[in-house]
């Protein structure tokens, strides 16, 4: 992740003496490195960090529409959140998705990757494609398809009725628990293959001799998996955990398209609420920006915890 920069000082000096001036050649190399970095850095600065900074300023403002003024006190929007029952509910809902969906998805992905990595498996290409394909489908279209499948007169109800598993059609999207379940199911379908690809890539880098050695030592497949494969996949697992956590906390499309946040806002995610506050209701962009900063802080804290827990390198 960190950009490769030509070291500006070739000799490693630990002594506290006066700074040794780098040689002209080293300085030139360093400057060349910075010159190559500059385009991307400036672009990211203009396109990402400047808007983020503006959003921070915006989060200190109140007012409707385009008439915005600095709030009094400045943290008014953040204070307001504490008494916002709908926002609290969306935080709970989002964390629920996170707690159920991410572990379930990553374990499934890991198992699938391991199965697909088996050299004796036939039609490997087909299976890989089939499992990865959902990740290539637009978020909106799959949400709408799921919405149709789980409609009261949809495919799922038709099948369950035909199999005599239920007496009457289930209103999947009309009840809080089933609607949340449908969203989690959708997320699993859409993202498991995507994470599996990361694990497959990670598995390619595992030295087969370590697996053979485990076999020689009499370890069964399960023991090999947990004691040899998983530890070597750790960096990849950490990466996918952080990415999935980040993605789930910012979940929008499924909530917006699949359930429209209903019934009674109980499936609405934080990002969906932020959109409602800014675009659907009386536009309150100051409050919306404050909400987005809270999401950012949550993502940062969770990522920091995961890196601390997951990274056991010394």
């Amino acid at each position: 992740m960190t950009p490769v920069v030509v070291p500006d000082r070739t000799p490693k000096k630990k002594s506290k003496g006066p700074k040794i001036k780098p040689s002209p050649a080293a300085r030139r190399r360093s400057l060349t490195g910075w010159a190559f970095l500059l385009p991307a850095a400036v672009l990211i600065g203009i396109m990402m960090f400047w808007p983020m900074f503006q959003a921070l300023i915006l989060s200190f403002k109140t007012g409707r529409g385009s008439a915005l003024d600095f709030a009094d006190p400045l943290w008014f929007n953040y204070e307001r959140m504490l008494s916002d029952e709908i926002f609290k509910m969306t935080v709970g809902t989002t964390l629920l998705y996170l707690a159920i969906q991410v572990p379930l998805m990553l374990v499934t992905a890991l198992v699938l990757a391991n199965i697909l990595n088996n050299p004796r498996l036939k039609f490997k290409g087909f299976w890989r494609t089939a499992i990865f394909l959902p990740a290539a489908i637009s978020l909106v279209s799959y949400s709408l398809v799921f919405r149709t499948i789980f409609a009261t007169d949809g495919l799922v109800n038709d099948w369950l009725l035909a199999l005599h598993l239920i007496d009457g059609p289930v209103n999947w999207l009309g009840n809080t628990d089933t609607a949340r379940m449908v969203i989690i199911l959708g997320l699993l379908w859409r993202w498991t293959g995507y994470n599996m690809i990361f694990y497959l890539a990670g598995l390619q880098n595992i030295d087969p001799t370590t697996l053979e050695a485990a076999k020689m030592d009499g370890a069964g497949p399960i023991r090999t998996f947990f004691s040899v494969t998983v530890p070597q996949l750790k960096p990849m697992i950490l990466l996918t955990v952080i990415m999935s956590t980040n993605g789930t906390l910012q979940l929008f499309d499924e909530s917006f398209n699949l359930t429209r946040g209903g019934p009674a806002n109980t499936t609405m995610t934080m990002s969906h609420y932020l959109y409602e506050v800014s675009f659907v209701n009386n536009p309150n962009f100051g409050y919306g920006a404050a909400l987005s900063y809270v999401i950012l802080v949550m993502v940062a804290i969770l990522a920091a915890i995961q890196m601390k827990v997951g990274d056991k390198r010394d």
Partner: protein
Amino acid sequence: MKKLRTGMALAATATFALSLAACSSGGSTDDASGGASGDGEAMGNSLTVWAWDPAFNIYALQEAEKVYQADHPDFTLDIQEVTWEDLQTKLTTLAQSQEFGELPDIFLMQNNAFQKNVINYPDLFTDITDSGVAFDEFPEGVTAYSTVDGMNYGVPFDAGTAINAMRTDILEEAGLTLDDFTDITWDEYIALGEQVLEKTGKPMLSGIAGEPDTILMMLQSAGQSLFDDQGNPTITDNAALAASIDLYSEMVEKGIYLEVNSWDEYIASIVNGNVASTINGVWISGSIQTAEDQSGLWGVTDLPAVDGIDGATHYSANGGSSWAVSSNADVALAEDFLSATFAGSTELYDTILPGAGAVANWLPAGDSEVYSEPQEFFGGQAIYADVLSFAAGVPANNTGAYYYEARDAVGAAITQIMGGADPATALGEAQSTVEFAMN
């Protein structure tokens, strides 16, 4: 060293060129999609309009274009289909980014959203009070939607007058007629509905779960709103609202009211004959008439009145929209177009009424004979004359800027009540949600 400096200069230039290119390309795509007529055109003969329903308001625009072309042969209308949700998002985005150059000349706006948009983003609109549009030729209750601080910002288009459209053949099966449902109360309606359900197995009504349209129509018919005259939410201590919710839950529990999850399912329940009737704004007649096999099987009557509420009527409204002239418009042409068509052409309304069920708000159009013509689809009933008589009795509704917040909050409360929550608690929560939003 020289090489290095050139390299750095190149890199820096490339950066800025790239970022500029990014900006300008972003701008040009917007141009293409917006397609607005810029200020550059001094004397234009074309207008860009945003509207959302090809079978209804876009069709009306096409007819208006023909009417206006009779006197202005060079005139063209560039009609762009933008769904209402997208239209609202676009307006908010453009206003927030001050990109008024992307606005069309004219856009259609839901009456219920008009106040909110004018109050929040006055920069989007042109004040058309002195445009020559005869606003006194519209009912006051309808121009009120688009009037802020005494200034007019919109020309009313379609009326949202509520109708009770019923399948006469299904009623007949249950031994009933349209007359049995005329000028009754909701209690009587529920009793008759049980009879229909028993005899035919069909519920009376359908509607989207969690969307309070039916309840809000009941509320308005009783002369009440979700806000008082000062604009304060009145969700708690609102006898009419409580009575409407009671009636609604009773109907759902008894199986008279079928709750569905989406607009498509709602329309399907009507045109597939799964329900015996529907209550909605008169614009619903456009969708009803797509079921050509049901021609002659429909009839229209007034709404049941809410029991036990003073001032309860048989008339209500839902929806309706108005034309707004944007701040980026060829104002003279836009005003002239609107006053010559939607606010001045009986010919236009005579065409779009039977064609799309667009019932005019423009009073002179009501004198037209087209309104008293029998409608074959509705069993020869002159439904549009009836609708006009309903329209006169619709009580005014206070929408205000926070209408959608209140609507959503009441919708959530109803979902909770249907799930077994205590009505008083749920409505109290809804009230505080709206108060919170207004804070």
